[in-house]
């Protein structure tokens, strides 16, 4: 091995340093005195050796002679592997089946948060449609709306703590989730009151819309290609919520608009969650 490396170095030195004659180079040749290399030449040679053998010199190795250099290089380059023993079967794999690795608890948590959030958002969408079509608020309706908002709030807070990769959809959901849970609880605890319920729904829609606006802006910086669509839907939801709120203040009946705003908000939540919540890493997709 030393002899082979010596021959390779004997060929490499004139390639890297054309002015150096290696015809009389031996194992004991001194780089400076016998071959005439100065410190700059040694640097050039070091780089050429690193490129050829794929390792890196320490800052100041001792290399006065060719033999010193070979002693330095030998332990740092891959040795040729010995031929496989005859008749020896390759070590069997430990019976682990091929296929996807088992999911970690963290990945399962993100997946669960994503699914629960989508289901809660779907219920929100349906409740909005119900408000548009039915319109007749009763105590039972108030309780149902309250239950949906509690579920929505719990899903949002679970999403916040789930630590998905993109941290877009759930990044601001702790506050909005808490508001949602409190509002849902109020629906259960307070006496039946259409006006208060409608005010609270409008405020929720406006707050959630602004949260999604923030997510859209962050998605743009992050590199999500459909951030425009996210921005547009967020602006729509905020606008609908504000208009419904104004109508309510003017003592008019905002039932239809409130229901629509709730439905659009629910739909927007579903789409945002599907598009921006990444459960686990994979190679970057060129176009989504």
């Amino acid at each position, binding site marked *: 091995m030393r002899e082979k490396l010596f021959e390779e170095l004997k060929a490499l030195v004139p390639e890297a340093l054309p002015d150096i004659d290696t015809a009389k180079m031996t194992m004991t040749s001194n780089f400076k005195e016998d071959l005439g290399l100065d410190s700059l030449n040694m640097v050039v040679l070091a780089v050429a050796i690193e490129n050829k053998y794929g390792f890196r010199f320490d800052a100041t190795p001792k290399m006065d002679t060719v033999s010193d250099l070979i002693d330095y290089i030998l332990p740092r380059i891959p040795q040729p592997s010995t031929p496989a023993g005859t008749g020896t079967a390759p070590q069997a794999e430990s019976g682990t089946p091929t296929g996807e690795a088992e999911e970690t608890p963290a990945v399962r948590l993100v997946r669960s948060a994503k699914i629960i959030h989508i289901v809660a958002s779907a219920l929100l969408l349906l409740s909005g449609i119900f408000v548009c079509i039915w319109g007749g608020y009763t105590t039972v309706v108030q309780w149902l709306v309250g239950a949906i908002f509690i579920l929505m709030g719990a899903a949002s807070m679970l999403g916040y703590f789930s630590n998905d*990769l993109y941290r877009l959809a759930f990044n601001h959901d702790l506050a909005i989730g808490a508001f949602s849970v409190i509002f849902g609880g109020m629906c259960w605890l307070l006496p039946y009151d259409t006006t208060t319920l409608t005010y609270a729904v409008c405020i929720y829609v406006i707050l959630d819309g602004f949260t999604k606006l923030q997510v859209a802006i962050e998605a743009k910086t992050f*590199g999500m290609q459909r951030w425009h669509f996210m921005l547009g839907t967020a602006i729509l939801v905020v606008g609908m919520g504000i208009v419904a709120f104004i109508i309510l203040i003017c003592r008019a009946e905002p039932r239809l608009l409130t229901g629509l705003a709730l439905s659009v908000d629910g739909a927007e939540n579903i789409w945002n969650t599907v598009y921006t919540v990444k459960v686990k890493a994979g*190679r970057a997709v060129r176009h989504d």
Partner: protein
Amino acid sequence: MSSFTRKAIIDAFMRIAEKKPLQKITVRDIVDDCGINRNTFYYYFKDIYDVAECLFSYPDDALPLGIDPEDDPGLTVGRLLSFSVSHRELIRNLYRSVGYEGMERYMHALLEQKLEQAIRGAAGAKMPEADVDFLCRFLQKAVFGIIVDWFADGMKEDPTLLTAKLNRLSMVAIRAWTQENTPL
């Protein structure tokens, strides 16, 4: 652990920058590639350009270029050129994205430190600070200009020969100035 995460981001960036120009690389690409979350990326870097800049800077852990702060100045240039050859597309994409001025800004600290090291090593305490600064800037512009011309030319010249020429010329200039011994 933090150095490991930082290195993972840099490695992911280097892989992706071999295939895409800088302006088309997104934080999402990095997050998808190395599996860290978005907030973790922003904990270490402001944006993609920040990651590109750190390829040439001195963090606490080893430089992606394989340059050690203790390296001989000549070795630094050699490793810079070797890295450029082995990561040809990455350097090409960087250069096309940030241009001459961007590359100069990226390499400024690296070249300045190493040239100053070489000048002080050769001149010792004899050379006044103002002369050290001027010579350092002069050589930095010269060395960087040659390197960028080499990038623009498709890295055709052998990096080992170019390293030898740059090192030799720099040392000749430093020694001549030191022997002249006349402050500016």
